[in-house]
Each structure stands twice: as C-alpha cells, then as structure tokens.
C-alpha cells in the first residue's frame, strides 16, 4: 500500500516547505536503498503570455531547486533511499484552466510511473482562479492514482476567509438570495421585487468572497441534479439505520459497542468532504468527530454501523454527486485498507466483528 513514487506540483506558497516534508516522509515510508522512493517536483509555467519569459522560468527553477534542497535535507540519513527529480512543465502549451493543469499532470503520471500525487493545499500555478478543488476533481476523474492534500499546519488560519471571486460567483449568490427572499415572501409585489433585489445585492456583495469556495463552472447544474438524486438515497439510509439504532437504544440491555475509528475517504475538497462527513453523521450509528484532510475520525456506536461505514456506500454516493457516475466504481475503504479501529477490543470476545486491518499507511502523518 505504501506508495513510493510521488508527484508534487509546486508553486510559491507559504506551505510549500511542509508539503515537501510530507511528500518526502511518505516517499521514504517503506522505501529501501535498493528500491528508492521517488519525489518528483514539477513546476507549471504561468500562462500570462504565449511564450514563457526567462524571468518566469528562472523563478520556477529557483522554486524547484529550493524544493529539492529541502527534500534532501528532510531525507537526512535516508538520502540513498530517495530519488528527487524536478521538471518544468507546460512551456509549449497555453494553460488556462484546471483541466489543462490536470492534463499535464496526467501525462507526467504516465511518463514517470507515478502512483500518488501530493497537493499543496495552497497550490496555485497562477492561472488566476481558485483551482485546488477543480484540479482535485479532474485528477480523480482522469487518473487512477491517489490524490491527496498535504496535511500542513499553517502559521495562520487553516483557510483564508476571503477568496477570489468572479462575476459568476456573485451571480449565483445573488440568484440564490433573491429566490430565497421571494420564497419567504410568497407574493411578487413591486415592493418585494425591489427590496429583494436590494437584499440579494447586499448579500452577494458582502458574502461572495466568503461563501464561495470556487468559481461556479459548467459542471454545477449537473452536480445539483445529482445532489437531488442523492437526497432520497440518503433519506433511505437514514431511516433504515435509524430503525436499527432505535432498537438498540430502546433495548433494555443496551447492546452497544462504541469504538472510535478512522477512515480515509477518497473525496477531496471542502464541500465533498463536508457532505460526506455530515451524511455519515446523519446516518445513525456513525458520527464524524474530526476531519483532517481526507481522514475522517468516526465514532461508531454498533458493529453493524461500523461495517456499513467500512463498506463505503455513502462515500461512493458522494463521489457520484461530485465526480459523476464513472467514479463510483472504487473499492470500499475496507478493501483499500483505509480503515482503522482506533480503540481495538482488548479482550477476545467473539462479538468483535470488525477485524481491524490496521495498516499504518498514510494515516500516521495526519496528526
């Protein structure tokens, strides 16, 4: 499971140092001197002009050399077990969207036999749009390698409150607020249309940079439709599980077996993670306690719920909502070895139905 060939796209960010450290640590994990791990740093040219200026290229080379210096530094005594490569990408192409970046990275994956991509949470190749989320989606669709965000701890707050926004973003927010206002109101008088417009403008202007994680794109309506399909499924899951858990709680013997577990979910980005975390919480018997990147610390009440969680049906459904039908067919977290019971039973009582395939894969670095 331990992945050893890691691709890291780099850009000038405050979290680059920690990302490098994380990638090196992951690459060294399980590597031997006869079978060295690989960390490949790539820098993607900014697309401001058709041709890349020397200045830009120099800046890129500077970042890359800094990254590889850090990487050797972090490898320390294990230097022999690590190969560090650098490359500049996209010199001959015009890159202006997340999917272009993803396409470049996809080529890289094929060329260098990469099996994991580590993303800097603040990675931005300078194409001027909030990019991480769409990039993660693209990569999840295009490649079959693991994509994860480096669990960096920033000196400041985890996420900046204000993000870049766009006319489309303001528009979406304005529309939402306006529709909500008219729904509340129920009548369409001139007064309501005027005040509704005013309210929606105020909301859009003040909150556009707060509420939108990313620029709305053409995939948004599709995701909304898929989200609506998801609701009845979730309701069914909630009700079915509720009946089971209710029976347990009303049972005079109270046959519970609470355990803290950890699952690495294969969804990336704030909204998918939150949807998954809240769906898990809403489904009785499981409760998301912490979210660290892709690692969910989930408290489970009964073995039945634990098995359901490890089967990953909700994860698949959330992947369907955000990445489409094609991305549903992934192995369950249990098959991937992405599950772990943090409080394994100490005594051998036969009831311990969950065989914790405890694998110290990627979870160690999450703390």
């Amino acid at each position, binding site marked *: 499971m331990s992945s050893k060939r890691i691709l890291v796209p780099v850009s000038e960010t405050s979290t680059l140092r920690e990302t490098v450290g994380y990638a090196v640590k992951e690459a060294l994990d399980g590597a031997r001197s006869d079978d060295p791990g690989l960390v490949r740093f790539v820098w993607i040219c900014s697309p401001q002009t058709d041709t890349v200026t020397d200045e830009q290229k120099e800046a890129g080379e500077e970042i890359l050399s800094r990254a590889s210096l850090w990487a050797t530094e972090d490898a320390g005594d294990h230097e022999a077990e690590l190969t560090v490569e650098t490359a500049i990408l996209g010199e001959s192409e015009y890159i202006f969207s997340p999917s272009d970046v993803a396409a470049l990275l996809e080529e890289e994956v094929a060329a260098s036999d990469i099996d994991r991509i580590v993303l800097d949470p603040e990675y931005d190749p300078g194409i001027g749009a909030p990019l991480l989320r769409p990039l993660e989606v693209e990569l999840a669709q295009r490649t079959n390698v693991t994509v994860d965000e480096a669990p960096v701890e920033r*000196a*400041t*707050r985890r996420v900046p409150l*204000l993000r870049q926004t766009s006319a489309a973003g303001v528009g979406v927010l304005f529309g939402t*607020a306006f529709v909500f206002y008219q729904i509340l109101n129920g009548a369409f008088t001139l007064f309501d249309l005027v005040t509704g417009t005013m309210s*929606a403008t105020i909301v859009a202007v*003040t*909150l556009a940079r707060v509420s939108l994680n990313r620029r709305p794109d053409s995939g948004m309506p599709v995701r909304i439709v898929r989200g609506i399909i998801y609701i009845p499924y979730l309701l069914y899951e909630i009700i079915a599980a509720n009946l089971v858990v209710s029976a347990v709680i009303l049972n005079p013997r109270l046959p519970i077996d609470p355990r803290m577990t950890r699952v690495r979910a294969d969804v990336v980005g704030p909204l998918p993670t939150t949807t998954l975390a809240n769906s898990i919480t809403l489904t009785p018997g499981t409760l998301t306690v912490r979210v660290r990147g892709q690692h969910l610390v989930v408290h489970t009440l009964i073995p039945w719920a634990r098995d359901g969680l490890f089967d990953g049906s909700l994860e698949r459904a959330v992947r369907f909502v955000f990445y489409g039908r094609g991305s549903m067919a992934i192995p369950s977290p249990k098959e991937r070895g992405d599950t772990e019971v943090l409080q394994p039973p100490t005594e051998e009582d036969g009831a311990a139905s969950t065989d914790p395939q405890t694998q110290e894969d990627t979870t160690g670095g999450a703390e």
Partner: protein
Amino acid sequence: MSESQEESPYVESQVIMTTVQLIAPFSMTYGLFLLFHGADTPGGSFQGGAIIGATVLMIAFAFGIEVTREWLRNRTVVALAAGGVAAFGMVGLVPVLVGGKFLEYKMYKEVFGIKAKWGLEAIEILGVAPIVAGVVCGLFFAIAAGYLSNGDTWDSRSPTDADTKSTPTTEVTDDD
C-alpha cells in the same frame, strides 16, 4: 500573520466552515427580509439587525476572529452603528426643516408626496437595523479582543485590559 501562534496551531474545522458558508447567505437574506418586511409581518428591524449581526458572529466562529476582522473593517462596524443613529435623526429632522415636528411623517406626504409609511420604513431600515447589527458585531469583537490581549499582538495599547472584560455583560442585556 503572527508567526508566533504558540504551540500546536488550532486547525479550524472544515465541516463547520463549509456549513457556515452554506447557511450564512440564507440567514443574512432572512435578516434583510425581516427588516424590509417589519411593517407588514411579524418581526422587524430589530430582529433583522440582530440576525445579520448573528450571521457575522457565525462567520467569526467558523473562520476565526482575525480573518473576520480583515473582512469587516473597523469603519464598517462603526459606520453601521453611528450611521444608523444619524439616519434615524435625519429622517426625524427633515419634517422639522420643512416646518413640521420631529418625526412628523405626515410632512413627507404633504411636502414631498411620499406616503407616511415610507417614513416609518426608513427609520426601521436605515436607523434601527444598522444600529443593532453594528452594535452586536462591535460588542462581539470588543469583548472577544478583551481576552486575546494577553501579550497578543493586536492589542497595542494595554495588555492588562484582559481583566476588565467582565463588565460589558450588563450592557448586553440592554439590547432587548
């Protein structure tokens, strides 16, 4: 910003942040709805202003006060509160200027041909709501800063202020 974030920086919860991002536009729209419709339906500008203020608190809790501070400048909060009082006074004084009495809405109809109703609406929307929203935010940030000040960088004046922080609660209840 402050590199010396002491030991083990606290990581904000992704789930809480995303939910707040989702709820904030709705609660803010609802607050605005209440203050615009205070004249005809239950609720009104006081409640609307309080809900708008609560929306800001919501964001401050999810993302942390420092970043909210960058978003909402000092002068925004002060302008809301002080501007509200000023607007209220203005609406009241205009009838005086044209020979009526303070807050005599009838004068709006007689002199400007505006229905008296809009005078009421004006003090509700421009006066009461901004004052409440501004004061709620202002109190929140002021009290929150009260105990961040222990050696923290952004209380430049007196780091000992922290001990006086329990006084403002009496003022808080005055809002009702």
